[in-house]
């Protein structure tokens, strides 16, 4: 098949390579073949190869995907495939983006757990079927691949928008009974740069490789912020 790969920075261009097809070949396999056999100067990222680390996401035929768990059979069209870096992130080189802004937004959304207990205290008991625990379960498996961030049109329109991943993280903490900084977090995720700018296009939910719905979490944050507003605690 012919694989066209983005080369250079934002003002780069696509370069075509001929890559042999194999059974059960993943997109990452194809990229690795190019780098190891055809052109060792190709820059790309990967680590675990099994869908855990979130480092190999790229734009495949215009769609953001995790490449280690995407079979070529699923995405190849007319024996051709086009690979580009993720959208909405600065391109460092070839298929590698600078993800620091993406993770900075997790920090801005107060994405760090803050409990009240110490290692000397007993575990806090959380009922598995409590509504909070169920909501946390639905969003907690995020691997930080930035596929949702790349798929989001609001991020493209508003560069300061926190984005689906950071807001989903905030939502799992807001729903965590053990966390002590809910109000501070709601203030961090409210407003034009936060949950209120979500257009509910659901591109993040459509593309998330882990089947998470950041849209649902963002809607939950809107409800929580509205309640805090009504109680005059925001």
């Amino acid at each position, binding site marked *: 098949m012919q694989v066209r790969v983005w080369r250079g920075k934002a003002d780069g261009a696509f370069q075509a390579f001929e890559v042999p097809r194999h059974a059960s070949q993943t997109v990452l396999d194809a990229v690795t073949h190019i780098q190891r056999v055809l052109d060792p100067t190709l820059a790309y990222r990967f680590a675990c190869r099994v869908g855990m680390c979130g480092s190999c996401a790229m734009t495949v035929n215009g769609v953001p995907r995790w490449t280690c768990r995407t079979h070529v059979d699923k995405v190849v069209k007319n024996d051709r495939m086009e690979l580009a870096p993720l959208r909405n992130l600065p391109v460092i080189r070839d298929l590698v983006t600078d993800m620091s802004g993406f993770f900075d937004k997790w920090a801005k959304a107060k994405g760090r757990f803050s409990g009240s207990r110490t290692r000397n205290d007993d575990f806090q008991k959380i009922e598995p079927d409590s509504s909070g625990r169920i909501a946390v379960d639905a969003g907690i498996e995020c691997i930080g691949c930035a596929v949702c961030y790349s798929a989001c049109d*609001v991020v493209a*329109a*508003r560069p300061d928008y926190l984005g689906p991943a950071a807001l989903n993280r905030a939502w799992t903490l807001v729903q965590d009974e053990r966390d002590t900084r809910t109000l501070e977090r709601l*203030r961090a995720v*409210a*407003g*034009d740069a*936060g949950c*209120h*700018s979500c257009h509910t296009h659901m591109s993040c939910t459509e593309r998330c490789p882990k089947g998470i719905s950041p849209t649902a979490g963002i809607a939950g944050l*809107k409800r929580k*912020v*509205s309640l805090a*507003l009504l109680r005059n605690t*925001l």
Partner: protein
Amino acid sequence: MNVKAQAVLWVAQRASAAVLALCVTVHLATMVYAIRGGLSAAEILSRTRGSVGWLVFYTVFVLAVTVHAPIGLRAVLEEWFGWRGTARDVLLVGLTLLLAVLGMRAVLGVFL
């Protein structure tokens, strides 16, 4: 504008949208029903003049539009044209007043 004010705008826009959903439905249904056999301006005025019910209904309609449209336009201006800041907000306050004045002028025009 602080985060709390931004959240208030969001709630105001969603609440006005809920009001508009009802108002637009009633308005369109009434129009379709009223003009099915043809309708003149004189006939419209004969039904609306002095009708407190229609005065209240269309006043609510106009106020909902007045709240809803500028907040939506605020987001459009920012997301499509990258325009934010005081100049934009002054323009939107002006638009709000314009919608209120023109809307209420129309409502009172068919009531009085």
